């Protein structure tokens, strides 16, 4: 039987403290009554109340949410198609280039992706704004969706599809009734990841945005560049709360494992190797 040594335990506990303590401190400070961020002035919700009057900030939040909904949905469709193509279509012409274009954006520094997207939009003289950011986010996020769905498809028991076909289902019916329903949790995980990526992105959005499309991260960034502000502590705490709750709720509903981005497997199997899935990024 494996033993958890004191050293193992210390590593886990310290690691989790390191990951979560800064977030906890941020949330605590958002309830600080004092105007000076570093001085504790007692508990208060005044900064949350003041947010309601911050119209530019609310506008930016609204734009960001719309943007995340649009780009996550588009990225999920494109990413799922790409995953099906990679797993099911064998060695089609141009497959290597296709696969390279899927995996490169996972690690490509955002500054480069943002700059190249912008130069494309300028070269074809498209006015920049909401839709250019949406296109850029879709392109970045679809690759993450592909990796998640692909990991699920590779795992897939092909016999199920063959059984459906033997029973007289057409390929399309088989795909809808069997394949799609089995990979649905991975697709849902992909959509959520794409949503989170879009909601979070500062660099790519800064390059590709235009008048009237200031996203929440761009707004937050311009506020905090020069230092910590109490209102920003409150906004950030709300974002953490909303995203955190959404992720936990979705993972309970879909019963998929956040750590792997794939559905919970039968118990005898370990909690999963298709790692990247979650981080989207890969081993």
């Amino acid at each position, binding site marked *: 039987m494996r033993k958890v040594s004191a050293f193992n335990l210390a590593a886990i506990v310290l690691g989790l403290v390191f990951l979560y303590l*800064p977030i906890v401190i941020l949330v605590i400070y958002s309830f600080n009554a004092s105007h000076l961020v570093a001085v504790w002035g007692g508990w208060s919700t005044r900064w949350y109340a003041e947010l309601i009057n911050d119209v530019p900030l609310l506008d930016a939040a609204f734009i960001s949410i719309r943007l995340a909904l649009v780009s996550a949905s588009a990225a999920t469709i*494109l990413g799922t198609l790409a995953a099906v193509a990679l797993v099911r279509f064998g060695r089609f012409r141009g497959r290597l280039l296709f696969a390279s274009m899927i995996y490169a954006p*996972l*690690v490509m520094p*955002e500054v480069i992706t943002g*700059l190249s997207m912008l130069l494309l939009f300028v070269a074809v003289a498209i006015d920049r704004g909401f839709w250019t950011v949406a296109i850029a986010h879709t392109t970045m996020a679809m690759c993450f969706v592909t990796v998640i769905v692909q990991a699920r498809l590779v795992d897939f028991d092909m016999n199920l599809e063959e059984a459906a076909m033997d029973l007289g289902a057409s390929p399309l019916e088989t795909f809808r009734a069997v394949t799609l329903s089995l990979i649905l949790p991975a697709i849902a995980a992909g959509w*959520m990841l794409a949503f989170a990526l879009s909601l979070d992105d500062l660099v790519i959005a800064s390059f590709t945005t235009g008048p009237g499309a200031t996203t929440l991260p761009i707004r937050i960034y311009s506020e905090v560049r020069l230092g910590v502000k109490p209102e920003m502590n409150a906004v950030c705490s709300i974002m953490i709360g909303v995203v955190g709750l959404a992720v936990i709720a979705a993972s309970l509903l879909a019963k998929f494992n956040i750590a792997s981005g794939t559905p919970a497997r039968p118990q005898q199997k370990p909690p999963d190797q298709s790692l990247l899935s979650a*981080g989207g990024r*890969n081993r």
Partner: protein
Amino acid sequence: MTSKRSFAEKLVVRIPYAWLLVFFLVPFLIVLRISLSQPALAQPPYTPLFNLLAGWHGITAFFGALSLDNYALIGSDPLYLLSFVKSVEIAAFSTLFLLIIGYPIAYGITRTPRRVQALLMTLVMLPFWTAFLIRIYAWMNILQHDGPLNRLLLALHIVNTPPVWLASDTAIYIGIVYSYLPFMVLPLYATLEKLDESLLEAAADLGCPRSKIFWEVTLPLSAPGVLAGALLCFIPAVGEFVIPDLLGGSQAPMIGQTIWTEFFGNKDWPAAAAVAIVLIGLLVTPIVIFQHQTMRAVERG
């Protein structure tokens, strides 16, 4: 699969393929082209890309206008070189720190019962889902002059005068290690978790001391995870913008900041494009290794 595919099946490949060609590959070619053009006082601020209507003359003009001036500028101005060196140095050391911190965490998690492992990995990955920018901002709070960290250090009498954390390379390292930790733990966990226990038992049965088992069996067997984690952290860290911009100082910018400033500040688009191309050139080898690994890992299932 049969070789004859229906039109609908072809679309499954062609739609995402076309999307990536137009929005991923073509933009790179444009960056390459602009890096070879001269800055101009115009909108957009570079000499025209091409003029198809001019026919053959247009094509010769296209090649005639190509210039390596921007690359010469990068080569001659030590600012760019310093920026590249600093980025690679910070990314390399951060990756090393991440390995040192991430490995015991991943290893510790594999020692716990299976059900707990799933929960712990979920906890490790959860911060990834919550906004990246906000997690860096959280560190601005902690590291400020009279912030929680300095108060703690003063209260414990570890220091007598509060040290300056923000606007330093130390803060950049903290920021990178903090935000990339899940990416390091995940691949390490994935390989360690699949490690064949019987090999460790065999080594122990043959009288190998525990520390030696780790160095000679566990660590070599987890090499793929180490490589994957290192690439996953190193490549994006080299081009990092937000972390050095919010936590770092203004002395020597990292390369991501240099591209940003050339672009938004100096409005020298060709120079920004040339810096981006050099950065891609620098990262192309690790990126190709990463792609190769990912492709193999994903397709093996």
